[in-house]
Protein backbone atom coordinates (compact mmCIF):
# COMPACT_ATOMS: atom_id res chain seq x y z
CA UNK A 1 0.00 0.00 0.00
CA UNK A 2 2.72 2.44 1.09
CA UNK A 3 4.98 1.31 -1.74
CA UNK A 4 2.14 1.70 -4.22
CA UNK A 5 1.47 5.20 -2.93
CA UNK A 6 5.16 6.11 -3.15
CA UNK A 7 5.22 4.72 -6.66
CA UNK A 8 2.19 6.82 -7.57
CA UNK A 9 3.80 9.97 -6.18
CA UNK A 10 6.98 9.17 -8.13
CA UNK A 11 5.04 8.73 -11.36
CA UNK A 12 3.27 12.05 -10.76
CA UNK A 13 6.55 13.95 -10.66
CA UNK A 14 8.27 12.20 -13.59
CA UNK A 15 6.53 14.37 -16.25
CA UNK A 16 7.88 17.49 -14.49
CA UNK A 17 11.36 16.02 -14.78
CA UNK A 18 10.80 15.32 -18.48
CA UNK A 19 9.60 18.87 -19.14
CA UNK A 20 12.69 20.13 -17.30
CA UNK A 21 15.00 17.99 -19.49
CA UNK A 22 13.24 19.31 -22.60
CA UNK A 23 13.57 22.94 -21.46
CA UNK A 24 17.29 22.69 -20.69
CA UNK A 25 17.96 20.82 -23.93
CA UNK A 26 16.22 23.63 -25.77
CA UNK A 27 18.28 26.16 -23.84
CA UNK A 28 21.45 24.25 -24.77
CA UNK A 29 20.59 24.40 -28.47
CA UNK A 30 19.90 28.12 -28.15
CA UNK A 31 22.98 29.04 -26.13
CA UNK A 32 25.49 26.22 -26.65
CA UNK A 33 26.28 26.41 -22.92
CA UNK A 34 28.48 23.41 -22.10
CA UNK A 35 27.11 23.22 -18.56
CA UNK A 36 23.78 22.02 -19.93
CA UNK A 37 25.04 19.66 -22.60
CA UNK A 38 22.35 16.95 -23.00
CA UNK A 39 25.07 14.33 -22.66
CA UNK A 40 25.33 15.25 -18.96
CA UNK A 41 21.75 14.86 -17.76
CA UNK A 42 22.99 14.55 -14.18
CA UNK A 43 23.65 18.32 -14.42
CA UNK A 44 20.03 18.87 -15.42
CA UNK A 45 18.95 17.13 -12.25
CA UNK A 46 21.57 18.89 -10.14
CA UNK A 47 20.45 22.30 -11.42
CA UNK A 48 16.81 21.41 -10.72
CA UNK A 49 17.65 20.31 -7.18
CA UNK A 50 19.77 23.44 -6.74
CA UNK A 51 16.95 25.71 -7.87
CA UNK A 52 14.56 23.99 -5.45
CA UNK A 53 17.10 24.47 -2.63
CA UNK A 54 17.35 28.14 -3.62
CA UNK A 55 13.64 28.54 -2.88
CA UNK A 56 12.99 26.34 0.13
CA UNK A 57 16.14 27.06 2.14
CA UNK A 58 15.68 30.85 2.43
CA UNK A 59 11.90 30.42 2.65
CA UNK A 60 12.30 28.48 5.89
CA UNK A 61 15.57 30.19 6.84
CA UNK A 62 13.85 33.59 6.99
CA UNK A 63 11.64 32.37 9.83
CA UNK A 64 14.50 30.57 11.58
CA UNK A 65 16.98 33.45 11.45
CA UNK A 66 14.49 35.91 12.91
CA UNK A 67 13.63 33.44 15.65
CA UNK A 68 17.35 33.28 16.43
CA UNK A 69 17.38 29.61 15.49
CA UNK A 70 19.98 29.96 12.78
CA UNK A 71 21.95 26.93 13.96
CA UNK A 72 19.06 24.48 14.02
CA UNK A 73 19.85 23.61 10.38
CA UNK A 74 23.29 22.48 11.45
CA UNK A 75 21.86 20.28 14.20
CA UNK A 76 19.35 18.69 11.86
CA UNK A 77 21.94 18.17 9.13
CA UNK A 78 23.98 16.08 11.54
CA UNK A 79 20.94 13.99 12.40
CA UNK A 80 20.12 13.66 8.71
CA UNK A 81 23.60 12.24 8.36
CA UNK A 82 22.62 9.66 10.99
CA UNK A 83 19.53 8.97 8.88
CA UNK A 84 21.69 8.34 5.83
CA UNK A 85 23.84 5.98 7.89
CA UNK A 86 20.70 4.16 9.07
CA UNK A 87 19.56 3.77 5.46
CA UNK A 88 22.92 2.48 4.29
CA UNK A 89 23.12 0.16 7.28
CA UNK A 90 19.65 -1.31 6.70
CA UNK A 91 20.33 -1.72 3.01
CA UNK A 92 23.58 -3.55 3.75
CA UNK A 93 22.29 -5.74 6.56
CA UNK A 94 18.76 -6.47 5.32
CA UNK A 95 19.62 -6.29 1.62
CA UNK A 96 17.04 -3.59 1.02
CA UNK A 97 17.23 -0.82 -1.52
CA UNK A 98 15.71 2.07 0.39
CA UNK A 99 16.97 5.53 -0.59
CA UNK A 100 19.16 6.85 2.25
CA UNK A 101 17.51 10.22 1.65
CA UNK A 102 14.17 8.76 2.71
CA UNK A 103 15.61 7.35 5.94
CA UNK A 104 17.31 10.74 6.41
CA UNK A 105 13.90 12.45 6.13
CA UNK A 106 12.44 10.15 8.80
CA UNK A 107 15.36 10.49 11.22
CA UNK A 108 15.68 14.28 10.72
CA UNK A 109 11.95 14.85 11.31
CA UNK A 110 12.10 12.74 14.49
CA UNK A 111 15.17 14.72 15.59
CA UNK A 112 13.40 18.01 14.84
CA UNK A 113 10.52 16.99 17.08
CA UNK A 114 12.98 15.87 19.76
CA UNK A 115 14.59 19.32 19.79
CA UNK A 116 11.20 20.90 20.42
CA UNK A 117 10.14 18.31 22.98
CA UNK A 118 13.39 18.60 24.94
CA UNK A 119 12.97 22.38 25.00
CA UNK A 120 9.35 22.10 26.13
CA UNK A 121 9.94 19.36 28.72
CA UNK A 122 13.07 20.71 30.36
CA UNK A 123 12.77 24.48 29.85
CA UNK A 124 16.29 24.22 28.45
CA UNK A 125 17.26 26.86 25.99
CA UNK A 126 16.91 25.81 22.37
CA UNK A 127 20.64 25.79 21.80
CA UNK A 128 21.04 23.18 24.57
CA UNK A 129 18.50 20.85 22.99
CA UNK A 130 20.05 21.50 19.56
CA UNK A 131 23.50 20.62 20.87
CA UNK A 132 22.22 17.38 22.41
CA UNK A 133 20.41 16.30 19.24
CA UNK A 134 23.33 17.34 17.00
CA UNK A 135 25.84 15.29 18.99
CA UNK A 136 23.53 12.30 19.26
CA UNK A 137 22.85 12.35 15.52
CA UNK A 138 26.46 12.54 14.53
CA UNK A 139 27.44 9.93 17.13
CA UNK A 140 24.82 7.50 15.80
CA UNK A 141 25.98 8.15 12.24
CA UNK A 142 29.65 7.53 13.00
CA UNK A 143 28.87 4.38 15.03
CA UNK A 144 26.80 2.87 12.21
CA UNK A 145 29.45 3.74 9.64
CA UNK A 146 32.28 2.40 11.77
CA UNK A 147 30.46 -0.92 12.01
CA UNK A 148 31.19 -0.96 8.29
CA UNK A 149 28.65 -3.64 7.46
CA UNK A 150 28.98 -4.37 3.77
CA UNK A 151 31.46 -1.56 3.10
CA UNK A 152 29.24 1.14 4.57
CA UNK A 153 31.89 3.83 4.56
CA UNK A 154 32.10 3.68 0.80
CA UNK A 155 30.42 6.73 -0.75
CA UNK A 156 29.82 8.49 2.56
CA UNK A 157 31.70 11.54 1.24
CA UNK A 158 28.86 12.35 -1.13
CA UNK A 159 26.58 12.84 1.85
CA UNK A 160 29.14 14.79 3.85
CA UNK A 161 30.13 17.18 1.06
CA UNK A 162 27.39 16.77 -1.56
CA UNK A 163 27.87 15.70 -5.13
CA UNK A 164 26.25 16.97 -8.31
CA UNK A 165 26.89 13.81 -10.26
CA UNK A 166 25.05 11.56 -7.80
CA UNK A 167 21.70 13.34 -8.09
CA UNK A 168 19.67 10.50 -9.55
CA UNK A 169 16.21 10.81 -11.11
CA UNK A 170 14.82 9.24 -7.94
CA UNK A 171 16.59 11.82 -5.76
CA UNK A 172 15.37 14.66 -7.98
CA UNK A 173 11.82 13.37 -7.58
CA UNK A 174 12.28 13.19 -3.80
CA UNK A 175 13.37 16.83 -3.92
CA UNK A 176 10.32 17.82 -5.99
CA UNK A 177 8.15 16.11 -3.38
CA UNK A 178 9.87 17.88 -0.49
CA UNK A 179 9.67 21.17 -2.39
CA UNK A 180 5.91 20.77 -2.88
CA UNK A 181 5.29 19.92 0.77
CA UNK A 182 7.41 22.82 2.08
CA UNK A 183 6.08 25.50 -0.27
CA UNK A 184 2.46 24.41 0.22
CA UNK A 185 2.79 24.33 4.02
CA UNK A 186 4.40 27.77 4.18
CA UNK A 187 1.82 29.19 1.77
CA UNK A 188 -0.95 27.84 3.98
CA UNK A 189 0.48 28.84 7.36
CA UNK A 190 2.42 32.00 6.43
CA UNK A 191 0.27 34.23 8.65
CA UNK A 192 0.71 32.02 11.67
CA UNK A 193 4.43 31.42 11.11
CA UNK A 194 5.02 35.16 10.76
CA UNK A 195 3.10 35.96 13.95
CA UNK A 196 4.88 33.26 15.98
CA UNK A 197 8.24 34.36 14.58
CA UNK A 198 7.76 38.02 15.33
CA UNK A 199 6.00 37.95 18.68
CA UNK A 200 5.46 34.54 20.24
CA UNK A 201 3.57 35.77 23.30
CA UNK A 202 1.18 37.97 21.33
CA UNK A 203 0.63 35.06 18.95
CA UNK A 204 -0.25 32.83 21.92
CA UNK A 205 -2.60 35.49 23.29
CA UNK A 206 -4.28 35.71 19.88
CA UNK A 207 -5.15 32.04 20.24
CA UNK A 208 -2.50 30.40 18.07
CA UNK A 209 -1.21 27.01 19.27
CA UNK A 210 2.38 28.27 19.29
CA UNK A 211 3.95 24.92 20.23
CA UNK A 212 2.41 23.27 17.17
CA UNK A 213 3.67 25.96 14.83
CA UNK A 214 7.13 25.61 16.36
CA UNK A 215 6.95 21.90 15.63
CA UNK A 216 5.81 22.52 12.06
CA UNK A 217 8.71 24.92 11.59
CA UNK A 218 11.38 22.48 12.80
CA UNK A 219 9.89 19.64 10.77
CA UNK A 220 9.97 21.79 7.63
CA UNK A 221 13.59 22.62 8.47
CA UNK A 222 14.36 18.90 8.61
CA UNK A 223 12.84 18.46 5.14
CA UNK A 224 14.87 21.36 3.73
CA UNK A 225 18.05 19.98 5.22
CA UNK A 226 17.56 16.55 3.67
CA UNK A 227 16.62 18.04 0.32
CA UNK A 228 19.59 20.39 0.24
CA UNK A 229 22.00 17.73 1.50
CA UNK A 230 22.22 16.14 -1.95
CA UNK A 231 24.23 18.97 -3.42
CA UNK A 232 25.35 20.89 -0.32
CA UNK A 233 26.42 18.02 1.91
CA UNK A 234 25.83 17.68 5.66
CA UNK A 235 28.63 20.04 6.56
CA UNK A 236 27.44 23.03 4.54
CA UNK A 237 23.71 22.59 4.29
CA UNK A 238 22.90 25.03 7.11
CA UNK A 239 24.61 27.86 5.23
CA UNK A 240 21.80 28.01 2.68
CA UNK A 241 19.27 28.48 5.47
CA UNK A 242 21.16 31.41 6.93
CA UNK A 243 23.50 33.27 4.55
CA UNK A 244 21.00 34.44 1.87
CA UNK A 245 18.57 35.49 4.62
CA UNK A 246 21.28 37.47 6.40
CA UNK A 247 22.07 39.21 3.10
CA UNK A 248 18.43 39.98 2.37
CA UNK A 249 17.95 41.42 5.87
CA UNK A 250 20.58 44.04 5.08
CA UNK A 251 18.83 45.43 2.02
CA UNK A 252 15.11 44.74 2.47
CA UNK A 253 12.54 47.23 3.68
CA UNK A 254 9.83 44.75 4.62
CA UNK A 255 9.37 41.13 5.58
CA UNK A 256 7.74 40.15 2.29
CA UNK A 257 10.54 41.87 0.40
CA UNK A 258 13.16 40.08 2.50
CA UNK A 259 11.58 36.72 1.65
CA UNK A 260 11.75 37.51 -2.04
CA UNK A 261 15.26 38.98 -1.94
CA UNK A 262 16.63 36.04 0.07
CA UNK A 263 15.29 33.63 -2.57
CA UNK A 264 16.83 35.72 -5.37
CA UNK A 265 20.20 35.80 -3.56
CA UNK A 266 20.06 32.06 -2.89
CA UNK A 267 19.25 31.27 -6.53
CA UNK A 268 22.10 33.49 -7.63
CA UNK A 269 24.49 31.66 -5.29
CA UNK A 270 23.24 28.24 -6.44
CA UNK A 271 23.48 28.95 -10.18
CA UNK A 272 26.83 30.72 -9.98
CA UNK A 273 28.12 28.08 -7.57
CA UNK A 274 27.08 25.14 -9.76
CA UNK A 275 28.47 26.88 -12.84
CA UNK A 276 31.83 27.69 -11.25
CA UNK A 277 32.18 24.26 -9.65
CA UNK A 278 31.46 22.60 -13.01
CA UNK A 279 34.14 24.55 -14.84
CA UNK A 280 36.84 24.46 -12.11
CA UNK A 281 36.02 20.95 -10.92
CA UNK A 282 35.48 21.93 -7.27
CA UNK A 283 32.84 20.62 -4.84
CA UNK A 284 29.56 22.37 -5.61
CA UNK A 285 28.44 22.78 -1.99
CA UNK A 286 31.60 24.61 -1.01
CA UNK A 287 31.55 26.90 -4.06
CA UNK A 288 27.85 27.71 -3.55
CA UNK A 289 28.49 28.71 0.06
CA UNK A 290 31.52 30.83 -0.87
CA UNK A 291 29.48 32.63 -3.53
CA UNK A 292 26.63 33.11 -1.04
CA UNK A 293 29.03 34.61 1.50
CA UNK A 294 30.41 36.92 -1.20
CA UNK A 295 26.87 38.06 -2.01
CA UNK A 296 26.23 38.57 1.69
CA UNK A 297 29.32 40.82 1.95
CA UNK A 298 28.05 42.88 -0.97
CA UNK A 299 24.62 43.11 0.67
CA UNK A 300 26.16 44.44 3.89
CA UNK A 301 27.96 47.04 1.80
CA UNK A 302 24.78 47.96 -0.06
CA UNK A 303 22.84 48.17 3.22
CA UNK A 304 25.43 50.52 4.72
CA UNK A 305 25.46 52.70 1.61
CA UNK A 306 21.69 52.94 1.73
CA UNK A 307 21.74 53.92 5.43
CA UNK A 308 24.34 56.63 4.98
CA UNK A 309 22.40 57.86 1.97
CA UNK A 310 19.32 58.56 4.10
CA UNK A 311 20.58 60.99 6.81
CA UNK A 312 17.26 62.75 7.32
CA UNK A 313 15.34 59.66 8.27
CA UNK A 314 16.28 59.58 11.96
CA UNK A 315 15.70 63.29 12.43
CA UNK A 316 12.27 62.98 10.87
CA UNK A 317 11.40 60.04 13.09
CA UNK A 318 12.53 61.83 16.21
CA UNK A 319 10.24 64.74 15.45
CA UNK A 320 7.08 62.71 14.81
CA UNK A 321 4.06 64.62 16.00
CA UNK A 322 2.68 63.08 19.15
CA UNK A 323 -0.92 64.00 18.47
Amino acid at each position, binding site marked *: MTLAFAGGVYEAFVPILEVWYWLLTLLYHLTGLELINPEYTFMYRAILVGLCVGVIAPLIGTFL*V*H*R*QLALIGDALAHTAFAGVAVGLFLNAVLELSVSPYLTAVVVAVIAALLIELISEATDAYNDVSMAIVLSTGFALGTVLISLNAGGLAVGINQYLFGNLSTVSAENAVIMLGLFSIIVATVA*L*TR*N*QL*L*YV*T*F*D*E*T*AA*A*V*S*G*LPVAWYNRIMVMLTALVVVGAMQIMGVILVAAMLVVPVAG*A*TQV*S*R*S*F*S*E*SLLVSIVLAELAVLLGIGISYYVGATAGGVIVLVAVGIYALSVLAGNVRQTGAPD*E*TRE*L*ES*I*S*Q*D
Partner: protein
Amino acid sequence: MKPTMRSHHRDDTDEATTESNESRPSVVDLTDVSFGYTSTPVVEDITVSIDAGEYVAVVGPNGSGKSTLMQLLLGLLEPDSGTAKLFGVDATAFDDGARVGYVAQRAGTSREMPITVREVVKMGRFPHVGFGRLSAADWRIVDRAIDTVGMSAFADRRITQLSGGQRQRAFIARALAGEADLLVLDEPTVGVDTESVDAFYGLLESLHVDGITVLLIEHDLQAVIEHAERVICLNQEIYFDGPSAEFTDSAALARAFGTGTRLLTGGNG
Protein backbone atom coordinates in the same frame (compact mmCIF):
# COMPACT_ATOMS: atom_id res chain seq x y z
CA MET B 1 -6.71 62.41 18.66
CA LYS B 2 -7.69 60.88 15.34
CA PRO B 3 -11.19 59.51 14.65
CA THR B 4 -11.74 56.37 16.62
CA MET B 5 -11.86 52.83 15.28
CA ARG B 6 -15.17 51.90 16.79
CA SER B 7 -17.37 54.83 17.65
CA HIS B 8 -20.17 52.52 18.83
CA HIS B 9 -18.09 51.89 21.92
CA ARG B 10 -18.38 55.50 22.97
CA ASP B 11 -22.20 55.27 22.98
CA ASP B 12 -22.11 52.04 24.90
CA THR B 13 -19.75 53.56 27.42
CA ASP B 14 -21.77 56.72 27.86
CA GLU B 15 -24.80 54.64 28.66
CA ALA B 16 -22.77 52.36 30.81
CA THR B 17 -21.46 55.19 32.97
CA THR B 18 -24.98 55.83 34.19
CA GLU B 19 -25.35 52.26 35.25
CA SER B 20 -23.78 50.44 38.11
CA ASN B 21 -20.67 48.33 37.67
CA GLU B 22 -22.68 45.19 38.22
CA SER B 23 -24.54 45.73 34.93
CA ARG B 24 -21.35 45.76 32.87
CA PRO B 25 -20.17 42.40 31.56
CA SER B 26 -17.12 41.01 33.26
CA VAL B 27 -13.99 40.75 31.15
CA VAL B 28 -11.55 39.23 33.63
CA ASP B 29 -12.50 37.11 36.62
CA LEU B 30 -9.87 35.64 38.92
CA THR B 31 -11.15 33.75 41.93
CA ASP B 32 -8.78 32.59 44.70
CA VAL B 33 -5.99 32.15 42.17
CA SER B 34 -2.61 30.91 43.40
CA PHE B 35 0.37 30.04 41.26
CA GLY B 36 4.06 29.26 41.69
CA TYR B 37 6.76 28.11 39.30
CA THR B 38 8.13 26.04 42.19
CA SER B 39 6.52 25.15 45.51
CA THR B 40 6.81 28.81 46.55
CA PRO B 41 3.78 30.76 45.35
CA VAL B 42 4.39 33.81 43.17
CA VAL B 43 0.82 34.98 43.55
CA GLU B 44 -1.56 33.80 46.25
CA ASP B 45 -5.33 33.92 46.73
CA ILE B 46 -5.92 36.54 44.09
CA THR B 47 -9.52 37.49 43.54
CA VAL B 48 -10.05 40.21 40.99
CA SER B 49 -12.84 41.11 38.62
CA ILE B 50 -12.44 43.63 35.80
CA ASP B 51 -15.52 44.88 33.99
CA ALA B 52 -15.86 45.97 30.40
CA GLY B 53 -14.73 49.52 29.80
CA GLU B 54 -12.56 49.83 32.91
CA TYR B 55 -9.07 51.33 32.87
CA VAL B 56 -7.11 49.31 35.42
CA ALA B 57 -3.45 49.43 36.34
CA VAL B 58 -1.59 46.67 38.18
CA VAL B 59 1.39 47.92 40.15
CA GLY B 60 3.88 46.29 42.46
CA PRO B 61 7.59 46.12 43.17
CA ASN B 62 9.95 43.97 41.08
CA GLY B 63 9.18 40.29 41.53
CA SER B 64 5.74 40.99 42.95
CA GLY B 65 4.03 38.70 40.42
CA LYS B 66 2.57 41.33 38.07
CA SER B 67 3.64 39.60 34.86
CA THR B 68 2.66 36.21 36.26
CA LEU B 69 -0.78 37.58 37.07
CA MET B 70 -1.06 38.87 33.52
CA GLN B 71 -0.13 35.47 32.10
CA LEU B 72 -2.69 33.80 34.35
CA LEU B 73 -5.50 36.07 33.29
CA LEU B 74 -4.57 35.68 29.61
CA GLY B 75 -4.58 31.90 29.95
CA LEU B 76 -0.85 31.56 29.19
CA LEU B 77 -0.40 29.92 32.61
CA GLU B 78 -2.77 27.61 34.45
CA PRO B 79 -3.47 28.41 38.11
CA ASP B 80 -2.32 25.89 40.71
CA SER B 81 -5.60 26.59 42.44
CA GLY B 82 -8.58 28.86 41.88
CA THR B 83 -10.18 29.83 38.59
CA ALA B 84 -9.22 32.35 35.91
CA LYS B 85 -11.86 33.41 33.43
CA LEU B 86 -11.58 35.61 30.37
CA PHE B 87 -14.84 36.92 28.91
CA GLY B 88 -16.62 34.34 31.06
CA VAL B 89 -14.66 31.38 29.68
CA ASP B 90 -11.88 29.45 31.40
CA ALA B 91 -8.81 31.53 30.41
CA THR B 92 -6.70 28.54 29.25
CA ALA B 93 -9.56 27.37 27.03
CA PHE B 94 -10.38 30.84 25.70
CA ASP B 95 -10.08 30.73 21.92
CA ASP B 96 -11.44 34.06 20.70
CA GLY B 97 -7.99 35.63 20.56
CA ALA B 98 -9.13 38.56 18.44
CA ARG B 99 -10.90 40.02 21.48
CA VAL B 100 -7.61 40.50 23.31
CA GLY B 101 -4.83 42.83 22.22
CA TYR B 102 -1.46 42.41 23.89
CA VAL B 103 1.39 44.88 24.00
CA ALA B 104 4.56 43.67 25.64
CA GLN B 105 7.52 45.52 27.03
CA ARG B 106 9.76 45.90 23.95
CA ALA B 107 7.60 43.56 21.90
CA GLY B 108 8.95 41.72 18.92
CA THR B 109 11.56 39.02 19.21
CA SER B 110 14.14 39.97 16.62
CA ARG B 111 15.96 43.29 16.61
CA GLU B 112 17.03 42.79 13.02
CA MET B 113 13.79 41.60 11.49
CA PRO B 114 12.92 43.73 8.46
CA ILE B 115 9.24 44.23 9.09
CA THR B 116 7.16 47.34 8.46
CA VAL B 117 4.57 48.95 10.69
CA ARG B 118 1.83 47.86 8.26
CA GLU B 119 3.06 44.25 8.36
CA VAL B 120 3.01 44.31 12.17
CA VAL B 121 -0.46 45.84 12.33
CA LYS B 122 -1.87 43.37 9.82
CA MET B 123 -1.09 40.59 12.33
CA GLY B 124 -4.07 41.91 14.26
CA ARG B 125 -6.28 40.60 11.45
CA PHE B 126 -4.78 37.10 11.48
CA PRO B 127 -7.23 35.70 14.06
CA HIS B 128 -10.02 36.89 11.74
CA VAL B 129 -8.64 35.56 8.46
CA GLY B 130 -6.99 32.35 9.72
CA PHE B 131 -5.23 30.65 6.80
CA GLY B 132 -6.71 33.05 4.24
CA ARG B 133 -5.53 36.32 2.77
CA LEU B 134 -6.49 39.76 4.06
CA SER B 135 -9.39 41.18 2.07
CA ALA B 136 -9.66 44.81 0.96
CA ALA B 137 -11.91 45.38 3.98
CA ASP B 138 -9.24 43.90 6.29
CA TRP B 139 -6.61 46.24 4.82
CA ARG B 140 -8.94 49.21 5.36
CA ILE B 141 -9.22 48.23 9.03
CA VAL B 142 -5.41 47.94 9.23
CA ASP B 143 -4.90 51.38 7.69
CA ARG B 144 -7.54 52.91 9.95
CA ALA B 145 -5.83 51.42 13.02
CA ILE B 146 -2.51 52.88 11.91
CA ASP B 147 -4.22 56.22 11.40
CA THR B 148 -5.84 56.05 14.85
CA VAL B 149 -2.45 55.84 16.56
CA GLY B 150 -1.04 58.62 14.37
CA MET B 151 1.44 56.45 12.49
CA SER B 152 0.17 56.75 8.91
CA ALA B 153 3.28 58.61 7.80
CA PHE B 154 5.40 55.70 9.02
CA ALA B 155 3.27 52.78 7.83
CA ASP B 156 5.93 51.53 5.45
CA ARG B 157 8.90 52.12 7.73
CA ARG B 158 10.76 49.23 9.27
CA ILE B 159 9.69 48.85 12.88
CA THR B 160 13.36 48.77 13.94
CA GLN B 161 13.78 52.32 12.63
CA LEU B 162 11.18 53.73 15.01
CA SER B 163 11.59 55.20 18.48
CA GLY B 164 10.34 53.19 21.47
CA GLY B 165 7.14 55.23 21.75
CA GLN B 166 6.33 54.92 18.08
CA ARG B 167 6.94 51.21 18.18
CA GLN B 168 4.51 50.77 21.06
CA ARG B 169 1.92 52.77 19.12
CA ALA B 170 2.32 50.33 16.27
CA PHE B 171 1.62 47.45 18.66
CA ILE B 172 -1.48 49.21 19.96
CA ALA B 173 -2.54 49.62 16.33
CA ARG B 174 -2.15 45.86 15.93
CA ALA B 175 -4.57 45.35 18.84
CA LEU B 176 -6.98 47.86 17.30
CA ALA B 177 -6.79 46.12 13.93
CA GLY B 178 -7.87 42.96 15.71
CA GLU B 179 -10.84 44.92 17.07
CA ALA B 180 -9.87 43.88 20.56
CA ASP B 181 -12.23 44.52 23.45
CA LEU B 182 -9.46 44.13 26.01
CA LEU B 183 -6.06 45.76 25.70
CA VAL B 184 -3.37 44.30 27.96
CA LEU B 185 -0.10 46.21 28.20
CA ASP B 186 2.91 44.86 30.10
CA GLU B 187 5.13 47.78 31.13
CA PRO B 188 4.78 49.36 27.69
CA THR B 189 6.69 52.55 28.42
CA VAL B 190 9.98 51.04 29.57
CA GLY B 191 12.76 52.74 27.62
CA VAL B 192 10.39 55.29 26.10
CA ASP B 193 11.27 59.00 26.38
CA THR B 194 9.10 61.22 28.62
CA GLU B 195 7.44 63.16 25.80
CA SER B 196 6.43 59.96 24.02
CA VAL B 197 5.17 58.49 27.30
CA ASP B 198 2.74 61.40 27.70
CA ALA B 199 1.48 60.94 24.14
CA PHE B 200 1.21 57.19 24.73
CA TYR B 201 -1.00 57.68 27.79
CA GLY B 202 -3.06 60.19 25.83
CA LEU B 203 -3.71 57.47 23.26
CA LEU B 204 -4.67 54.93 25.96
CA GLU B 205 -7.04 57.45 27.51
CA SER B 206 -8.81 58.01 24.20
CA LEU B 207 -9.14 54.26 23.62
CA HIS B 208 -10.58 53.91 27.11
CA VAL B 209 -13.09 56.67 26.41
CA ASP B 210 -13.89 54.78 23.23
CA GLY B 211 -14.96 51.84 25.39
CA ILE B 212 -11.97 49.52 25.22
CA THR B 213 -11.07 47.83 28.49
CA VAL B 214 -7.47 48.74 29.35
CA LEU B 215 -5.36 46.64 31.68
CA LEU B 216 -1.98 48.15 32.25
CA ILE B 217 0.92 46.60 34.13
CA GLU B 218 3.16 49.48 35.02
CA HIS B 219 6.17 50.35 37.15
CA ASP B 220 5.64 54.12 36.94
CA LEU B 221 3.33 54.86 39.89
CA GLN B 222 2.98 58.53 39.07
CA ALA B 223 1.70 57.73 35.57
CA VAL B 224 -0.68 55.10 36.93
CA ILE B 225 -2.24 57.43 39.44
CA GLU B 226 -2.57 60.14 36.84
CA HIS B 227 -4.16 58.04 34.11
CA ALA B 228 -5.80 54.82 35.36
CA GLU B 229 -9.16 54.94 37.07
CA ARG B 230 -8.51 51.89 39.21
CA VAL B 231 -5.30 50.55 40.76
CA ILE B 232 -4.52 47.02 41.87
CA CYS B 233 -1.40 46.89 44.03
CA LEU B 234 0.19 43.48 44.12
CA ASN B 235 3.00 41.92 46.05
CA GLN B 236 2.28 38.20 45.92
CA GLU B 237 -1.16 39.03 47.27
CA ILE B 238 -3.38 42.01 46.65
CA TYR B 239 -2.57 44.97 48.93
CA PHE B 240 -4.93 47.44 47.37
CA ASP B 241 -7.76 47.40 44.85
CA GLY B 242 -9.67 50.62 44.38
CA PRO B 243 -9.85 54.05 42.75
CA SER B 244 -6.41 55.38 41.86
CA ALA B 245 -7.08 58.63 43.73
CA GLU B 246 -7.31 56.69 46.98
CA PHE B 247 -4.17 54.67 46.36
CA THR B 248 -1.70 57.42 47.28
CA ASP B 249 -3.28 57.87 50.68
CA SER B 250 -3.53 54.17 51.38
CA ALA B 251 -1.24 52.26 53.69
CA ALA B 252 -0.89 49.67 50.92
CA LEU B 253 1.60 51.79 49.01
CA ALA B 254 4.13 51.80 51.83
CA ARG B 255 3.40 48.16 52.71
CA ALA B 256 3.91 46.90 49.17
CA PHE B 257 6.83 49.05 48.15
CA GLY B 258 8.50 49.70 51.49
CA THR B 259 8.32 53.45 51.02
CA GLY B 260 5.69 55.24 48.99
CA THR B 261 6.91 58.85 48.89
CA ARG B 262 10.23 58.11 47.25
CA LEU B 263 8.62 56.01 44.54
CA LEU B 264 5.98 58.59 43.73
CA THR B 265 8.50 61.34 43.32
CA GLY B 266 11.19 59.16 41.81
CA GLY B 267 8.84 57.66 39.26
CA ASN B 268 10.55 54.34 38.87
CA GLY B 269 9.57 51.32 40.86
